[in-house]
């Protein structure tokens, strides 16, 4: 049992570290007095930085070599992430595209799609967004209602609405899950599309959250025309294609959860700074409970890496780490606000931002309730709940739901 790099990993780490050392002055500055303030400038600078990382082989390094990647493993990805954090430079801008959407196109896309889209995606020339969730389809993703209808000439017309879309305001393309056949059971009538975000009929609107900031978007599609080549993975195969994306999403979240900054060191430092709080038994007890669980998540991550290193795929139990992190951070925010008082809730406070962000994060990437269902069924082997939607054409499901309500 050890946490050490193998000789190969140590060599890779040294190589990444020396490149970052040499080039970190070229990275955009996002914090402190010299930080770039203008939103458009930030995006432009981060896209350029992603291009440099890609040139150096530090973006998409688990992608196959033929598509611009390095053909490396998840451990190398973690080493690269650690070194980027250590160098205090930003990582790639399009983590969703490189981590989830590009790999989906690699797995299911046509040769034309791979040669057209992958290289600009990897280099940050074209940013991508994930158009899956809808106002009425979140945890139950296969209930999407955004409709794509094929025209006589083979092209498609797309109408509907997506929500919780990160980066849509500057994305060039989106990967979109749409219903193409409502007369078959809901998982069967879905198809995945590539959508140009500048196509006529696409409207992006910022979605403000509790903090007042708009980190996500709503995206509306009003008779958007797509050509035949926009289909990824075949008509009617959208659910299988989406599952590939979601599998990569789990890996991305699993390897990146420490990057959220919800860790015991940061929270303990806030408590340690208050002379009374640091000696108060109740505060210490709460801090101890929160911190112990967050420390556990760090080592759960190392266990996941050990499994990945042996060629095993992380299962849904990695989702439990997300439950622990989010709930731990919620309790920490509450405790720190108790200690600091109303100043913790000042508009420019890091704690106000965290406290505002977490209630939504509880549902991101699958609600806590759905995660507990999935884990109860797949890991503990408990039986699923009876469902109303099995084997029923999607078009009939709505009226059945109406009758049940």
């Amino acid at each position, binding site marked *: 049992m050890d946490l050490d790099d193998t000789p190969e990993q140590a060599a890779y780490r040294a190589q990444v570290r020396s490149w970052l050392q040499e080039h970190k002055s070229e990275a955009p500055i996002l914090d402190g007095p010299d930080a770039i303030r203008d939103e458009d400038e930030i995006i432009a600078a981060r896209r350029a930085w992603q291009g440099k990382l890609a040139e150096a082989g530090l973006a998409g390094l688990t992608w196959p070599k033929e598509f611009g990647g390095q053909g490396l493993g998840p451990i190398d990805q973690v080493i690269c992430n650690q070194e980027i954090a250590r160098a205090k430079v930003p990582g790639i801008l399009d983590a969703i595209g490189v981590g989830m959407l590009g790999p989906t196109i690699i797995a299911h896309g046509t040769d034309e799609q791979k040669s057209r889209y992958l290289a600009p995606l990897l280099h940050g020339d074209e940013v991508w967004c994930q158009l899956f969730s809808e106002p009425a389809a979140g945890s139950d993703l296969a209930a999407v209602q955004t409709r794509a209808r094929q025209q006589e000439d083979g092209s498609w017309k797309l109408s509907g609405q997506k929500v919780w879309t990160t980066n849509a305001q500057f994305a060039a393309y989106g990967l979109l899950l749409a219903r193409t056949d409502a007369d078959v059971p809901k998982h069967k009538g879905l198809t995945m599309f590539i959508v140009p975000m500048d196509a006529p009929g696409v409207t992006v609107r910022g979605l403000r959250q509790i903090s007042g900031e708009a980190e996500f978007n709503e995206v509306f599609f009003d008779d958007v025309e797509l050509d035949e080549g926009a289909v990824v993975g075949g008509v009617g195969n959208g659910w299988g294609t989406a599952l590939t994306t979601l599998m990569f999403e789990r890996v991305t979240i699993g390897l990146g959860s420490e990057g959220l900054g919800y860790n015991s060191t940061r929270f303990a430092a806030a408590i340690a700074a208050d002379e009374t709080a640091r000696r108060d*038994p109740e505060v*210490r007890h709460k801090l101890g409970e929160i911190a112990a669980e967050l420390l*556990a998540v760090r080592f*759960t991550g190392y266990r996941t*890496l050990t499994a990945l290193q042996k060629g095993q795929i992380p299962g849904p139990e990695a989702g439990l780490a997300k439950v622990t992190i989010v709930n731990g951070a919620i309790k920490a925010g509450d405790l720190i606000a108790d200690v600091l008082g109303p100043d913790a809730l000042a508009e420019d406070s890091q704690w106000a931002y965290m406290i505002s962000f977490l209630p939504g994060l509880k549902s991101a990437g699958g609600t806590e309730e759905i995660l507990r*269902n999935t884990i*109860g069924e797949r890991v503990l082997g*408990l039986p699923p709940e009876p469902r109303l939607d099995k084997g029923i054409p999607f078009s009939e499901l709505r009226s059945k739901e109406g009758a049940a309500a």
Partner: protein
Amino acid sequence: MNLALSDEQVFLREAARGALSRFKTLEAARKALDGKADALPDLWPTACEAGWPGLLIGEEHGGAGLDAFDAMLVLGECGRVIAPIQLLGHLPATAVLEASSTAPMLEELATGEKRAAFLPVCPPGDVHGGWSVDPREGMTRGDAPTVDGSGKLSGTLAFVPDAPGADLLVGVALQDGKPVGVAVEAGAGGVQVEAVTRYDATRSLGHVTLTGAQATVLDASEEALAAAWHLAQALVAAESIGSVETALDVSVAYAKERFTFGRAIGSYQAVKHSLTEVLRQMENGRSLLYYAGWARGGAPGEFPLAASAARSVAGQALDTAARTMISVHGGIGATWEHDAPLYFRRAQLSRRLLGGTAGATDRVAGELIAQADAA
């Protein structure tokens, strides 16, 4: 990066599971609660046969020379079946002796011919400034034993695991205000061990009174003395997570076979989510066992934090698991005949021994605050 068990560790764990499966430990635990103290099997010969008493003693003294994590694996197996075995007292005692150049009885302790018990003296934290012992009652911690220049040892310790019947008592005492390791034969004059049982009959405890007993003063470092306390924390944590494993397995099996309103109860979200919560706490606890096992050798400065975090999470996990086990089984889970109350009793008592789960939780905060001050 490798947190997987080695082949030897897998073998050690499987061998322990096999050896303990030959005994009806749960049935015995229930009978012992009914006052039949002789119902508990004597597992010490089994431990000796397997080499567990010498796990942490070097090979030059006849031990296996293994690490804390190996000992934790064995304790986990003991916890799975609530085995009444005296390793929780013995192993931290041998860790103190192993760190001393003048240790008595090592060979006999390695084979298990003699048995030791650890006198739990808690190292200073940032709220409680000195070495202290658990009180017999209440929240006021007691003073550590003292030893004079000629090795006369005096003091009292409450609820010492596995003290009854031990041949050697090993712990920490203050000599002119400085902590030193001490070892005293249980049969020496001035040593009194009063056996006590509380709520969980499988747990052998003793109140120890020392009045000028002749002890051997050991030259273990202050770090090694503190580490023995933290090792005991890690062992309780490992044992607790073992108990959680069984409690969860039994609960999940029942949730699949018990039907209400035409469905298995495990299909209801309320039941499913409570079992998933046990799994979550168990996995967190297990991850911290890895942290503690790794830190013991790999980052000794973090061992107090890691062991305390493991104890804190594992104690909570066992409480949750035992309560969930009872509630998933409905009324039957609260009856004397069921195994659930045995795990519940184990949870209740374990959480109050060796400084308590709450003490470990406080130390997690203390260690992190100290880290923040140093940063």
